[in-house]
């Protein structure tokens, strides 16, 4: 099914002022499109966790959202440094965030765990030095 792009936004590394804006924008776009409150909320959580991962851990990246009649596709691509151990990254409580990040309330080790909980499909490709590419599908009909 043909998908239409509804969002594409660059995310700057360590930009805690505007970090989260893309997720806010997507939330508003979905609301205007008449998507149900529950799906909007799930999408907001997934997108925000992924967006903040790029802000916190990467050298910068971008977020893209595409929509069709049935589903929403969210792609988050960053320029590195990549995840050393993907299994560990999906373990609740595991985090490589610095103390500075933790003091801001992030780095609880629940980011990808939360994403997996709300996503209907998730695909993460990552290797050291090559960046991380996340694709998430959220079904629009429950």
């Amino acid at each position, binding site marked *: 099914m043909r998908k239409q792009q509804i969002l594409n936004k660059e995310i700057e590394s360590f930009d805690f002022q505007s970090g989260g804006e893309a997720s*806010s924008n997507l939330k508003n776009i979905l609301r205007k499109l008449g998507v149900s409150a*529950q799906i909007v*909320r799930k999408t907001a959580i997934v997108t925000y966790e992924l967006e903040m991962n790029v802000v916190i851990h990467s050298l910068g990246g971008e977020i893209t959202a595409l929509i069709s009649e049935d589903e929403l596709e969210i792609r988050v691509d960053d320029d590195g440094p990549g995840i050393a151990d993907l299994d560990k990254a999906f373990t609740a409580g595991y985090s490589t965030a610095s103390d500075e990040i933790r003091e801001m*309330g*992030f780095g609880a080790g629940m980011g990808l765990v939360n994403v997996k*909980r709300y996503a209907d499909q998730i695909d993460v490709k990552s290797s050291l030095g090559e960046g991380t590419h996340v694709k998430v599908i959220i079904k629009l009909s429950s």
Partner: protein
Amino acid sequence: MKLKTVKKLLNTETIFEDCGINDNHNLDSACGDDLEINNACGADLMSDVLAFSNQKTLLLTGLTNPQVVRTADMVEIKVIIFVRGKEPQIETISLANQLNICLYSTDKSLFEACGLLYKNGIGPEEMNYIEASK
């Protein structure tokens, strides 16, 4: 419980309050004294805040950076109370203004503030996660 009772119980100072006067088309953004608060959460971890599932929750937190407001907005939290008398950064207030989220501060600790609200009938936020669509 009405927000005005919460404010009285915690003896809050108002940092930013939006009563939705200029936003009549969207009553959801109405805030101020008459907002009904049924449950609350106390957290200093943003991922924990994101795990709460109900709308119109009150957040009590010791963190004051703008990401607290951003996180609250993701899950439709309309009221944030900073504990231990903390003053948020100007960027935090500015974002709250933009997103219509009310900000207050209380001199009480997170434990005491949560305890007072619980004792007076505010329930814990349900932690049953949003059901994944099949």
